[in-house]
């Protein structure tokens, strides 16, 4: 997460990047064969140097598999209750134990992946899409467009974000779609701000001037010249943001918003298991919690790895 704001030049003359900046910008922008090959070898180097990132990749693939084929992988029906087997601790038959209705916790955790990742993915796509448009317009046009968009973003940022999400879901109605919209709204400022400052840096670069001189309209310049160059930096933010979106969605359902029981979802499973933890039935809440944590952890580590790959200077 970039906590320090990127340098935003106030006038074009100061927009000249430092030598180091333009060097790495060239590295980023070059897209010919050689650069691609060096990117691959760099990726290999980063992975071999950084076993943690590789581990995160493996975890990521596992979660994607669970999300796509969850119900086929799960050993039991996640909704089938079995009174004879209720509250059984982890056994060979039920690795993660069973809950108060005798449902298999492992199966519920696996099947829940699709819902949890789905909510976060759609929310991130929406805020990425909207934020990119808003941020590019604000950075490219400046003036009133910039003022209006920045004001909107500042107003969203004036709220503690999770609490704004709660308020939104309470106002829009307690449904899964509204959890998605609320998560998208609270992530909007991040994308708008990052895209805006990245566009500002490049707005007066030579190749943009050239594109303008050749007669390209603003829309074309923004879409085909500016935005593709902002994309690599955005990938880092998307990855870090996915983890946060998952946490956020699970947090909302933990307090009883959005997803309804008996639908398997990590946040709800932890909430349902919470009442049993004081009497010692730990597996109900701990296993879904660990899986939720692993999912968030995996996206955060991936983001860190991507950052080292794309822009080592951003590392903090």
């Amino acid at each position, binding site marked *: *997460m970039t*906590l*320090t704001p990127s340098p935003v030049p106030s006038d074009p003359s100061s927009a000249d990047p430092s030598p180091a900046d333009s060097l790495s910008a060239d590295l980023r922008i070059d897209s010919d064969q050689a650069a691609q090959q060096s990117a691959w070898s760099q990726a290999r180097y980063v992975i071999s140097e950084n076993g*943690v990132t590789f581990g995160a990749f493996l975890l990521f693939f596992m979660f994607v598999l669970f999300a796509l084929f969850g119900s086929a992988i799960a050993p039991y029906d996640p909704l089938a209750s079995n009174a004879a087997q209720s509250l059984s601790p982890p056994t060979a038959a039920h690795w993660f134990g069973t809950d108060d209705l005798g449902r298999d916790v492992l199966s519920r955790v696996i099947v829940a992946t699709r819902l949890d990742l789905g909510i976060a993915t759609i929310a991130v796509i929406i805020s990425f899409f909207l934020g990119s448009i808003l941020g590019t317009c604000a950075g490219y046009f400046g003036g009133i467009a910039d003022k209006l968009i920045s*004001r909107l973003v*500042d*107003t969203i940022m*004036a*709220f*503690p*974000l*999770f*609490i*704004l999400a*709660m*308020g*939104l879901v*309470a*106002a*829009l*109605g307690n449904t899964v779609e509204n959890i998605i919209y609320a998560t998208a709204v609270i992530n909007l400022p991040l994308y708008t701000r990052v895209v805006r400052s990245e566009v500002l840096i490049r707005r007066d670069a030579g190749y943009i001037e050239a594109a303008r001189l050749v007669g390209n309209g603003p829309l074309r310049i923004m879409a085909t010249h500016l935005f593709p160059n902002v994309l690599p930096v955005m990938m880092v933010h998307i990855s870090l943001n996915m*983890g946060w979106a998952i*946490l956020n969605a*699970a*947090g909302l359902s*933990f*307090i*009883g*918003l959005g997803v309804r029981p008996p639908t398997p979802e990590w*946040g709800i499973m*932890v*909430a349902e*298991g*919470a009442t049993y*933890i*004081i009497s*010692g039935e*730990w597996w109900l*809440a*701990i296993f879904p*919690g*660990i899986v*939720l*944590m692993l999912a*968030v*952890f995996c996206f*955060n*580590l991936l983001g*860190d790895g991507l950052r080292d790959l794309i822009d080592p200077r951003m590392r*903090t």
Partner: protein
Amino acid sequence: MSRTSTPTLIFRRILAALPSIVGVIIITFVLTRALPGDPAAYFAGPAASQEAIEQIRETLGLNRSLLAQFFIYIGELFRGDLGMSLTTGQSVLSDLLARLPASLELTLAGLFFSLVLALPLGVLAATRPGSWIDHSVRLIATAGVSLPTFFTGLLLIYLFYFRLGVAPAPLGRLSLLYTNPPAVTGLFLIDSLLAADFGTFWAALSQLMLPAITLGLFALAPLARVTRAAMLGVLSSDFIRTAKASGLSRRTILFGYAFRNALLPIVTTLGVVFSFLLGANVLVEKVFAWPGIGSYAVSALVASDYAAVQGFVLTMALLYVVLNLLIDLLYAVIDPRAGVES
């Protein structure tokens, strides 16, 4: 270059916070009025009669234009009228005021815990970049931000209450054996000390420990990361090299020169940290049955008690604006350059 006096500066910062406050009020207003369907029905609750709904429509001015409604809303806010809570049957404002100290105490304790842990970790990592300490601090920080607060809380309860039995039952601010200390600040730790009641202080502290640690772990990551980055930046600057060349001791260089300069970005990050803390507060309060405004909002949400939820969102947003203002002022106090106009 002319130096502005501190009172002018403070006044200017307060003025700069006004647009955020206006924005917050507009958004909360839109949230209350943009409810799909009939807002009067929402505010009256699911079991309300037709007459009750009509009466609420009248008092909220819902039959008038949106602009007129907005001014009625502002007028109510100035009179401190946030509506009535359906669940408690009392005014939302008095409910929130009664519960706010509990939330503040928890949030501040969480912040304290994470500062005490994050600052040394960040400094340690920055003085030995690339070492195993650096890597493990990075890993701990990433793990901390990946932990869902509600899960950390439950895990701590399981370990320290159920397994080890060292923590008290996770049921509120004070065990039933103790009476609340006489209210001065509303913060039990301070009030019990003021009353010189150390038994109550200890009891309140032991109740506060686990929820505060849960909150603090979540805020640890951004603080530790920024401390490390800021210290790294400062340590590679010219004046530190000069200080080293002059033969100053390592301790003087680290804490007298480097850390004081690194404080500035750390203070700036506190804004983000408070956004995290206030949000996570809601979850932690629910887990630990903490009688703050977060758990109040959660039960209001479940009961579709809209006036209470909106009052809560507004209170939290205003609190956050005020905290950001305080951070700004703190920044101006720490950094003399912030008062210099170019």
